[in-house]
């Protein structure tokens, strides 16, 4: 027998090198993908962070009884409709008394957002005893003022092309010196629906619309998907028909989502006459899209349940249905949930099919039910990205952050739920 060395062998060094090389390939690949992720997060974050603050103007408002409550009834319904615009104008006129020309006055009034009047109405509705008092109120500034405060002015730009005229800028500078122009936390971004005025636009309407659509989608696609998978996997006779069905389901999973949008438009709106632009129809369309994913994942999960468990139950005299629902489905449930989460995450980010069924509508109100018109987060992002106002840029980025956070929260909840189910062995 020839003597063999334990420390040196032909090709050993090359093998080690290959191993090291491969490890580096992996590390490089992961670094690159993490780098892209970081770039995305940083660019969206830096762009969108501005949307979480909003410039406000402090004005000393005299709640003149003659204007807001001429009859002196202190009726909240009347107060919430009162002419608060006049109060703002009066306050601005007092502050800048030298402004006399009507066109200049319009420019002055334009500094405060039209939302300012709504804020005063809301304040009056909540506290009718404000009537007759004089108080300092922080009112939302217009989007141009907001951008001016956040970004400053571009000195290279021809003054004639600027959104703010020189006199507006000088007023703002004087307000700034008085400390009457400040950036505050933007609560209305979290509590408002969409608006044509960027400073009043919020994502809550879209968020609720997305949540309601997903709820409908889950309520329909999860039971149907799981039951279809159970039937196909556990009950259906394996034959030509079941093979055709399987191939078709696999193909459906690859169909572009806009096609499902067209299908939904035709069936749910044109034939069934369900109300368009609603989370109900949106959820139904998303359910159509999610079903194949759920069925495929659920079948894989069922297939992964060891046959010995089925035999054990059958051997004890359990019927097919008892075996399936007492043992097989509970064991497959974590896998089924994973598939459902993947499907729902896809559905959450889906825009195209929702455009087809009219969820692209401009909706100001926050939907309170699945039969009200609504939009959804990705569609809202699409709408804002399409708007010309500069202030929508940061809102678009912020809405993307909200969408991603929603996704993270949803996945986290699902992972926790799955872990809880798995802990039952």
């Amino acid at each position: 027998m020839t003597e063999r060395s334990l420390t040196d062998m032909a090709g050993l060094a090359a093998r080690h090198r290959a191993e090291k090389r491969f490890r580096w390939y992996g590390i490089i690949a992961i670094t690159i993908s993490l780098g892209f992720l970081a770039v995305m997060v940083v660019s969206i974050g830096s762009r969108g962070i501005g949307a979480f603050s909003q410039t406000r103007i402090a004005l000393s408002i005299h709640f003149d009884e003659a204007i807001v409550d001429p009859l002196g009834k202190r009726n909240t319904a009347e107060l919430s409709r009162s002419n608060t615009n006049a109060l703002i104008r009066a306050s601005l006129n007092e502050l800048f008394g030298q402004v006399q020309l009507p066109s200049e006055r319009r420019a002055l009034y334009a500094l405060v957002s039209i939302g300012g009047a709504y804020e005063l109405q809301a304040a009056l509705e909540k506290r009718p005893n404000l009537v007759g008092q004089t108080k300092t109120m922080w009112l939302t500034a217009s989007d141009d003022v907001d951008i001016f405060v956040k970004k400053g002015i571009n000195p290279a730009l021809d003054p004639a092309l600027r959104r703010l005229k020189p006199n507006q800028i000088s007023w703002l500078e004087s307000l700034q010196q008085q400390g009457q122009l400040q950036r505050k936390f933007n609560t209305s971004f979290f509590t408002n629906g969409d608006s044509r005025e960027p400073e009043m636009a919020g994502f809550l309407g879209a968020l609720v619309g997305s949540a309601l659509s997903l709820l409908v989608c889950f309520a329909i696609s999860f039971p149907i998907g799981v039951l279809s998978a159970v039937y196909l996997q556990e009950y259906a006779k394996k034959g030509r028909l079941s093979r055709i069905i399987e191939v078709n389901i696999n193909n459906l999973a690859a169909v572009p989502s806009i096609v499902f949008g067209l299908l939904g438009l035709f069936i749910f709106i044109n034939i069934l006459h369900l109300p368009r632009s609603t989370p109900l129809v949106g959820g139904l369309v998303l359910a159509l899209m999610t079903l194949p994913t759920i069925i495929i994942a659920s079948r894989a999960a069922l297939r992964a349940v060891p046959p010995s468990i089925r035999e054990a139950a059958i051997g004890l005299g359990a019927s097919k249905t008892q075996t399936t629902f007492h043992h097989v489905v509970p064991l497959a449930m974590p896998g089924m949930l994973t598939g459902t989460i993947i499907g729902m995450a896809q559905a959450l980010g889906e825009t195209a099919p929702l455009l087809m069924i009219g969820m692209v509508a401009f909706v100001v109100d926050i939907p309170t039910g699945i039969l009200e018109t609504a939009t959804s987060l990705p569609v809202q992002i699409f709408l804002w990205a399409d708007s010309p106002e500069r202030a929508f840029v940061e809102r678009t980025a912020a809405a993307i952050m909200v969408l991603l956070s929603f996704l993270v929260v949803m996945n986290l909840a699902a992972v926790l739920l799955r872990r809880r189910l798995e802990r039952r062995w």
Partner: protein
Amino acid sequence: MKKPKKKSDVVENVMTVRNVDVFYGSNHAVKDVSLDIRKNQITALIGPSGCGKSTLLRCLNRMNDNIEICKITGEVKYDGQDIYDKNVDVVALRARIGMVFQKPNPFPKSIYDNVAYGPRIHRLAENKQQLDDIVENSLKKAGLFAEVADRLADPGTGLSGGQQQRLCIARAIAVEPEVILMDEPCSALDPIATAVIEELMEDMRLNYSIVIVTHSMQQAARISQRTAFFHMGELVEQGATSKIFTLPKDERTKSYITGRIG
């Protein structure tokens, strides 16, 4: 051969198999087998791999029903009824003829729930107390109670292999079957766990009739009263274990038990 009606008759047949053929697609797995299963005896089915002994065992409680390509002809009688008769409910049949598998396969549930599952689906217990009693008695009969009495809520899958197999036996016993089919119950176990189960089977024989498929001729010789030797799908020889192992009539049996084939 008719089933003897007299209770005093010791050689009472609990099951009779007559001219059974089993096909898996085009594979003729069991060929014209006729076999008697005696009451309160252990019947061992032996033979080389692929000889059809497990297939025949699975015919005895219609486990093959779920395999679509499997076709069975002939007659299998339990308690005088043809178990393949249209009127026979397979669920009721399997409650009378229990089964223990080659690989221990406890449900991924607690020890208690594993044993209680059968009584629950067959509604054998009227209340929690009765169910507790069934679980305890079954575990005792399977010789497992002393080992798990203080951890009935623990997962059954956390037990050792031999304990898991005894849990599966307890689970089968809990349904109060008359016949217990065992498909190589010790092949995944070490010799000590095997010895425990063999001892257990000897006790169980008083209450149940047992059919066991085994690869181990020594095991068949140790525990069974009757032995049937299968070869290539045919039942070559059956009879009292002592006779089969000492005076085999057929040359193939002789070769197998002396270790020349198989």
